[in-house]
């Protein structure tokens, strides 16, 4: 498409054409009305003057006879800018006046008519036009009084000229304005199109130019930019996941393969084969778990898990998880406690339960006090140190689901890092686990518009899921329904 063709096809230009037509129509009708009214006024003025003069002259004729009439006519005809006068005998002979010639038959009919005429003293031979009235005086004499229409014609000429000019100006300005506006819009749209093409070609970091005017195009560009931001974040997340899968799943896969190969080469009896196969199944189960966790994180992060959200009490979740893990903790020589108050929220109960379960599992795994930090014989201290506390509480507009242990904790410098996928802090490398627990908890919190906070329990770790509380009627009703779990200390 040529540049001009593109310009002409823009919405702005087409709109300009429509406006141009409307304005031209408006100007034309305005001038038309003006012209028509002026003409009417002038004609009215002429008729009034002529009627008055005929009245006067007829009066003079009645009082002073033909002689008076002729003198009056001659006098009046000599005035500068005089009207037209003509008096004829009943036979049609001119007696007095300033009219040289008339269109045929005008004198013969009484009343108003428009006619071509020539004055007696005219030098040129051109005809003029006049509006005249003919009356019959008594005794058969006829009187014509009229006025030249030159003035009216000139005025209409001026109006016509004005119409032409204004039309020309409207068209020129309109077209110019249209081209200007269309080009401006086209320029910005072209800039946007260029950027989007670059983005489509794979450069997701590109952003649309945003002007300072804050007009509709700027708002559009801002929104598109926000959308691009989101897409880029999602793409980055996806890339990160695939990178992590490639990196961290290949290691256990290699281990799996090596073991199988090793068993095939070295095992000599059934028991050895069996043991190797069992290890293989164990290892692949671990892989499946890691894979599921990764998918779940990706899903939570991309916001797909927004279905299946309902209103429930975080206290119930805390009690449920406590109930599930309490025996496990006890087996590990720790005490799992729970403390709750009504904390209604809106979310995916399953995901929040899993996030809390992950935090509890972490606390059981890593929350044991470091042996060196435990003074010998300090049983009371050790008792408190082996306690893990699950808490559900409402703090203003937040619901806090926290798990506190009294283990070594996570150093401040490592806290941001600990949430990332597959990160297993130095202290935990020897323990089983995929390194996804905290990332999942963090992704779940983000999905619900909250966050995962890692704090210091001095000593120990306090991991808190801070989620938006359910406020208003529903929250109060939910809180009222569940008084049995409130303030329960197990």
């Amino acid at each position, binding site marked *: 498409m040529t540049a001009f063709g593109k310009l002409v096809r823009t919405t702005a230009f087409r709109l300009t054409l429509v406006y141009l037509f409307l304005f031209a129509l408006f100007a034309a009708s305005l001038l038309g009305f003006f012209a028509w009214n002026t003409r009417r006024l002038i004609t009215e003025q002429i008729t009034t003057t002529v009627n008055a003069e005929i009245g006067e002259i007829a009066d003079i004729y009645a009082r002073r006879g033909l002689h008076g009439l002729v003198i009056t006519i001659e006098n009046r005809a000599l005035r500068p800018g005089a009207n037209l006068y003509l008096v004829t005998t009943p036979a049609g002979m001119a007696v007095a006046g300033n009219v040289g010639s008339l269109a045929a038959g005008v004198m013969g009919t009484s009343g108003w008519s428009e006619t071509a005429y020539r004055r007696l003293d005219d030098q040129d031979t051109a005809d003029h036009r006049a509006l005249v009235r003919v009356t019959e005086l008594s005794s058969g004499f006829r009187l014509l009084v009229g006025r030249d229409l030159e003035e009216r014609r000139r005025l209409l000429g001026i109006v016509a000229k004005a119409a032409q000019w204004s039309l020309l100006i409207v068209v020129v300005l309109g077209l110019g304005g249209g081209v200007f506006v269309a080009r401006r819009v086209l320029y910005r749209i072209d800039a946007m199109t260029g950027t989007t093409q670059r983005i489509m070609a794979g450069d997701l970091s590109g952003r649309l130019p945003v002007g300072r005017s804050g007009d509709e195009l700027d708002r559009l560009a801002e929104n598109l930019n926000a959308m691009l931001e989101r897409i880029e974040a999602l793409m980055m997340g996806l890339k990160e996941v695939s990178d992590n899968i490639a990196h961290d799943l290949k290691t256990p896969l290699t281990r799996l393969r090596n073991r199988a190969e090793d068993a095939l080469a070295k095992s000599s009896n059934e028991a050895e084969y069996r043991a190797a196969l*069992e290890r293989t*199944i164990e290892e*692949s*189960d671990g892989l*499946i*778990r890691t894979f*599921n966790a990764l*998918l*779940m994180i990706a*899903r939570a992060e991309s916001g797909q*898990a927004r*279905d*299946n959200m309902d209103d429930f009490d975080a206290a119930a979740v805390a009690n*449920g998880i406590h*109930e*599930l*893990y309490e*025996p*496990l903790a006890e*087996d590990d020589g720790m005490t799992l406690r729970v403390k709750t108050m009504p904390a209604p929220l809106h979310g*995916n109960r*399953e*995901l929040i*339960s*899993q996030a809390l*379960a*992950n935090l509890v*599992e972490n606390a*059981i*795994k890593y929350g044991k006090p470091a042996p060196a930090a435990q003074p010998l014989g300090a049983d009371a201290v050790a008792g408190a140190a082996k306690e893990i506390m699950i808490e559900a509480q409402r703090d203003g507009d937040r619901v806090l689901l926290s798990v506190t242990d009294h283990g070594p904790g996570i150093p401040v410098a490592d806290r941001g890092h600990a949430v990332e996928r597959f990160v297993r802090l130095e202290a935990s490398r020897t323990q*089983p*686990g*995929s390194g996804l*627990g905290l990332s999942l908890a963090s992704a779940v919190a983000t999905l619900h518009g909250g966050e995962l906070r890692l704090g210091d329990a001095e000593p120990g770790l306090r991991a808190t899921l801070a989620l938006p509380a359910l406020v208003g009627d529903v929250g109060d009703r939910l809180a009222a329904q569940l008084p049995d779990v409130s303030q329960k200390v197990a």
Partner: protein
Amino acid sequence: MTATDPQMRLLIIEDDRESADYLVKAFREVGYIADLAGDGEEGLALADTGDYDVLVIDRMLPKRDGLSLIGSLREKGNRTPALILSALGQVDDRIKGLRAGGDDYLPKPYSFAELLARVEVLSRRHGGPAEETTYRVGDLELDRLSHRVARGKDELTLQPREFRLLEYLMKHAGQVVTRTMLLENVWDYHFDPQTNVIDVHISRLRSKIDKGFERPLLHTIRGAGYMIRDGIR
């Protein structure tokens, strides 16, 4: 692990030839009659005959997907229990599957032991007796109405959750119950704990019902799960 008599008839609807053959072979080995359909239309036609005790349906099938297959079966009033196998293992997919009329949902990859345990439970549910108020295994007795549990003459005191755990195990006495099934049915969680949290609950329960008695009733089935049963089979 044996199938309930008379022989269980199973229809496997799965388009991946290798997994399908593996399933058919594995089910036949434990004494089932297993038929195979390779796509949704064929599966629907076979399932329509109503000759089967349980349907095992892959969710993504050529010609007609698993959910719509179940939907149209249910529309016709065919209530054969259906277990959905799916690579989509997330909670919301699961809910979708169950809403479409499926009776159970197992994400891939799964272990055969898990699948077998679930199929057995489904078939029992389908043709089994109405819910009883008292379950008995050997000299262990559980009253579902009064929440009383006794072994022989000894009254046992169970925590509410232990009671529900035992109730589920006894409801499926003689059948293998996997850890995931317990987590789903007793605790209503559908995630996969990284720890042996269920084992600890089982060992607590075991210490209450089996400790001090000559014959253990609660057995661990290696590589599969748990089973409550009387006597050695």
